[in-house]
């Protein structure tokens, strides 16, 4: 076991993609016709958006697909300049294949600012002869209307338990690991229909022990800092300062997560847990104040501790 499994077992043929039959059929017809419109792939993480885009490119362009396929991540290269310069430069040059166009795959396109999307729209139109776009996003509603109306939208569904289970068993067989039934169940509970998360958890669990059962899966699933942040938040809102701080220390010392990243994640997790909205706004006020203090203060750890102390107090009073 050497590679990252998500990559090792990423399907390369459209036929191997599971759980999205309707979409796969349509994409195959594009390959057959050697033509395609601009596409929007919308759906939750780990449902096959990137995989489908790559498999489509391989279908269209064959072995040298990489020369005609440019993958950009909108949340890494946000902003209007990226669209103006990088995308335009790529889009305007002639394709080096016999299909007649190339593909730009813009991942997390819903992270592009509306301005950048507007600029993108013009580029999509102007160079559509030589370049087709695939925009991937979690919610198509965050893509501006003019782009939506110029593209075919595909909605990816969360994968079923059967699909996930079959794939995990296949990987386990190839990697010669013992996967118990309750482990598959546990993976489905923590990862839902997210194939990427499922496989990542499986690989982490496989590196931790011989036999993989639900215990190991739960251990492995709590690794990602996003999950730890959620747990820390829950503890502090239960008034358990010391418990929350233990998790904080672990993240900082053992995993080297930066203070600003922890706050960033706390912010997004706050919207996901169920708390009254007036408490939410109070917590956000505290957070804003602390984050400001961290930028000015001497020691960021003190800021985070103060944040947890105040969360503990507010959470306790709410109960």
């Amino acid at each position, binding site marked *: *076991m050497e590679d990252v499994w998500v990559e090792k077992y990423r399907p390369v043929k459209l036929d191997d993609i599971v759980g999205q039959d309707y979409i796969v059929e349509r994409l195959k017809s594009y390959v057959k016709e050697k033509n395609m419109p601009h596409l929007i792939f919308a759906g939750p993480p780990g449902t096959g958006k990137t995989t489908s885009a790559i498999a489509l490119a391989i279908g269209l362009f064959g072995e040298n697909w990489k020369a005609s396929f440019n993958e950009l991540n*909108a949340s890494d290269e946000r902003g209007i300049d990226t669209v103006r310069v990088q995308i335009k430069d790529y889009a305007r040059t002639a394709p080096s294949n016999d299909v007649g166009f190339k593909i730009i795959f813009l*991942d997390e396109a819903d992270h592009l600012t509306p301005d950048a999307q507007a600029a993108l729209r013009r580029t999509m139109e102007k160079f559509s002869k030589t370049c087709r776009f695939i925009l991937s996003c979690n919610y198509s509603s965050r893509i501006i209307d003019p782009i939506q109306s110029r593209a075919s939208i595909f909605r990816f569904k969360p994968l079923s338990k059967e699909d996930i289970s079959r794939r995990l068993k296949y990987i386990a067989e190839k990697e010669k690991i013992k996967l118990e039934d309750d482990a598959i169940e546990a993976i489905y509970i923590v990862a839902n229909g997210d194939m990427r998360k499922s496989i990542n958890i499986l690989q982490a669990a496989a590196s*931790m022990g011989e036999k993989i059962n639900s215990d190991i899966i739960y251990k492995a699933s709590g690794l990602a800092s*996003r999950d730890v942040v959620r747990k820390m938040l829950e503890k502090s809102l239960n008034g358990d300062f*010391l418990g929350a701080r233990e998790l904080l220390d672990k993240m900082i010392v053992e995993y080297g997560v*930066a203070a600003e990243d922890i706050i960033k994640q706390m912010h997004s997790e706050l919207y996901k847990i169920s708390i009254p909205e007036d408490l939410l706004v109070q917590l956000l006020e505290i957070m804003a104040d602390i984050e400001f203090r961290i930028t000015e203060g001497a020691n960021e750890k*003190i800021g985070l501790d103060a944040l947890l102390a105040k969360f503990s*107090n507010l959470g306790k009073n709410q109960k």
Partner: protein
Amino acid sequence: MIEWAEKYRPKSLKDIVGNQDAIQKIREWGESWKSGNIPKKKALVFEGKPGVGKTSTALALANDFGWGIIELNASDIRNEEHIKEIAMRGSLYETFSDNGDFLSSKEGKRKLIIIDEADNLYEGKGDSGDRGGRKAIIETVKVTMQPVILIVNDPYELFKGEQGQVLRNLVEEIKFRSLNYKQISSSILKMICARENIIVDRNILDRIAQKSGGDVRAAINDLQMLAQGKKTITEKDLENLGSRDIVENIYSATLNIILSMSMKTSREVLNSVDEDPSLIMQWIDENIAHEYLDTEDLSRAFDYISDANLYLGRIRRLQYYGFLSYVYDFLAAVSIAKKHKYGIHGKLNSPDFLKAMAQRKRSKDYRDIISQKLSKITHQSQDSTNFEFFEIFMRIFRNDINFAAWNTVILNLSEEEIEFLTGNENVEKILEKSKDIMKKMGNNA
């Protein structure tokens, strides 16, 4: 009193303990200067933690080859002017050594220019800062006719940014690894005890060495402290190690603040201890929650701690020490943040955590760099990779050497990045395996 760490500094490369590969490379580099040819890389960068022998090696090299020395370290002001004046001039002319001996390069005589703590150059900060110091180092390395050695703890600082990359291409990096405690104990401490006629059990030397965490200088200093005015060291002496006065002061100040119900009393105690306020703040931060059980009190206490922290930050940034008394005020105010009198306190914990954190201050940089590399193979954004995949990757990397070696190759991980991922374990094994993989790939290609 002579410090033993100085007294027993190795005089020759052959006396250096550990890091033999590195020493061999350095010796060869020295030979090529001696032969009259200027080697391709005119500068070496010695990289490694404190007390692993970087400076000693540089000095021993000069001694073995009979070279003069020009040394610059952090205590000198090292702005562009200063480096140019001393290092550049020294590097261009073959003249006299610091002692006035004539050095002819025809006879293989050289002047070794040592720039110590080269990762502590402050670029463009204030008038007394090391403004443009790195630029001057690059210039020096480019034009030098003399051997140059740069010494750093953290190569990342030296090589970051565009200028850093330019510098990296001009030099050869030599990594110094920490010695293990056996090496320190049996090769160094034992020798010193023999020469100083001190009777001591091997087991005790082992413990001193273990405590040093690979820092030879620290181990020798501890040994010297324990041996002060004695001819034997016993188990009992060992207990004194590490609990120096400073800790006692801070300990009692912290305890006072946590227990007292009066701000004025606490303020007086703070006045009298005269210790680093940021250290006291860290002690309070570490221990307060074990005493202030009511979250109401705890939350108020952290308001004040956070105020103190804020003003400490402002002092640092503005270099305005007038704020210091407010820092003490806010720390003292922690006493009156509580509405209950608890009196529970057990033994206070030392905020070792913060020390550990300080050592990992670069962790964000490493995480970001590795996440960026990873995101290329996971087809995810850097943020998603960082928040959803990083720990999983890190865990597999630690658990599985084959995985680690293979990903070292595909992600082109540096030694520091591997150290960060594994927490410093198995680094050499991973590097070795990854070299094997590269060889195989080369053969197949």
